[in-house]
């Protein structure tokens, strides 16, 4: 299937001369949730802004639904909804009017029934006729989402939708995103909360210093890089790993009171049972055992802090 969004060799240099994106290529599949991860200033917002037409690309090509975003900007942009990182809203306008405005701007005929449905889905029904200035920050963010959905887009960009949102609201947001996906909308979201990407994304892209470092299925990524560790604490410290245990590649802690064993949870046999037997054979006594799975967070930190 052709990708719904296709970014080819995109470079963006701002007027200041700063290159915020360098040769970025990325295909987004229809119907997926793609999480774009990267530290502050990595280029996430720049990438989204360039796809949506807010900033001009310096070079490269972008297609949305098969339409070039410059030559066929009308067809391309009609498919896109954007929730910006900053909360930018007309303060003295009513929620419903602001949402109506967005729908019209994207060329759709008025349809209050649909807009009321969108507001209901975002729990904004009772705020429908209130002025935006009277809403809380979390509600304003929902209004932004309602505006982005007002013209029934096929692709939704969410730039840090849960920044500054409390835990409960964040879970609600995740549910909303899952519902949207179920209704066939492709979602691209940026976030600084790795557990968020872990919870809802189908694929993960990592960007740093304007370059895409990796794009992978979340499951595969976690399986490939997500290894498990078994930490064995000993009653007596050891000076070195006994030769009889060499095949396990154990790592000895600084003070010798613990050994760490790494294994792959997906392997046919983890080797744990055998290791425990061999430990006893080598005359070591266990005090405690702990297992730990490396999270997406560690993978992420490992990627972006690696020397370039």
């Amino acid at each position, binding site marked *: 299937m052709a990708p719904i969004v296709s970014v080819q060799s995109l470079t963006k240099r701002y007027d200041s001369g700063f290159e915020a994106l360098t040769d970025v290529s990325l295909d987004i599949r229809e119907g997926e949730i793609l999480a774009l991860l990267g530290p502050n200033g990595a280029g996430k917002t720049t990438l989204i802004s360039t796809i949506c037409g*807010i900033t001009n690309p310096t070079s490269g090509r972008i297609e949305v639904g098969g339409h070039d975003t410059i030559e066929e900007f*009308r067809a391309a942009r009609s498919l896109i909804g954007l929730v910006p990182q900053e909360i930018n809203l*007309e303060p003295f306008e009513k929620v419903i009017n602001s949402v109506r405005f967005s729908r019209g*701007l994207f*060329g759709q005929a008025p349809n209050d029934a649909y807009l009321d449905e969108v507001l209901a889905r975002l729990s904004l029904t009772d705020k429908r006729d209130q002025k935006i200035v009277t809403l809380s920050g979390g509600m304003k963010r929902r209004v932004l989402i309602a505006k982005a959905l007002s013209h029934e887009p096929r692709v939704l960009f969410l730039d840090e939708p849960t920044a500054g949102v409390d835990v409960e609201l964040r879970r609600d947001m995740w549910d909303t995103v899952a519902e949207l996906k179920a209704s066939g909308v492709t979602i691209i979201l940026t976030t600084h909360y790795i557990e968020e990407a872990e919870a809802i994304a189908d694929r993960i892209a990592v960007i740093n210093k304007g370059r895409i470092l990796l794009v992978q299925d979340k499951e595969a990524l976690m399986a490939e890089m997500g290894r498990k560790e078994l930490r064995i604490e000993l009653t007596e410290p050891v000076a070195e790993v006994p030769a009889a245990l060499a095949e396990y590649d154990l790592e000895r802690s600084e003070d010798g009171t613990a050994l760490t064993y790494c294994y792959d949870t997906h392997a046919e046999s983890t080797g744990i049972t055998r290791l425990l037997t061999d430990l006893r054979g080598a005359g070591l006594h266990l005090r405690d055992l702990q297992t730990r799975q490396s999270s997406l967070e560690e993978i992420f930190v490992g990627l972006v802090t690696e020397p370039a």
Partner: protein
Amino acid sequence: MNFQAVRSIYIFEMARFFRTLLQSFISPVISTSLYFVVFGAAIGSRIQEVEGVGYGAFIVPGLIMLSVMTQSTSNASFGIYFPKFIGTIYEHLSAPVNFLEITLGYVGAAVTKSLFIGLIILATAALFVDLQIQAPLAMLAFLVLTCISFSLLGFIIGIWASNFEQLQLIPLLVITPLVFLGGSFYSISMLPPLWQTITLFNPVVYLISGFRWSFFGLADVPIGISLLAIAGFTALCLGVIWWIFRTGWRLRT
């Protein structure tokens, strides 16, 4: 053509106008009345007639022009500056709209507002002086064209401005003096010859002259030249706006 977008922008802008309707209505009424008290009663008692027209009536076209020009400029400039200021401009930039549609929406709303104000001033003036309009259609055409061209100018200023001071700079430093010196309250023929020549470089002279002609059949410059001047000014503004959207100047980074 994305007509829905034009309609949306227009409605949204007009909603802002209606929120402050009373204010939009009262302030021109009060300021017009003040002008009549000061210019009509105080000065008008000394200047009896200008070229056969009572002074009170003579200043009406200039008075309307003064308000319409400043209102068009400030309404249109504020209309497009505000989304830039609060950041909602991202929507316009990411929407399937082109320059013509955005301009039509904002300038259309600004034209409507200033036309409304112009007509209110005309009605208020009619309470003070006896007005006869010789060419009503021409009068309306001049009024509408002035609203359009100055709203276009305001739209450009709104895109150009990067703070509120700049937004007010041009209306204050350029438009108001040009209107005052452009024969709003006197006939050019009342000036010494040297000043008459200098005044002809003021584009506003042509607009006020044409507008006044439609009331009294009196003009400082031939009516055809007035029409050419306003058409040229409108075309110039449209050209600049077309260039702005083509290059993304001050809008897209």
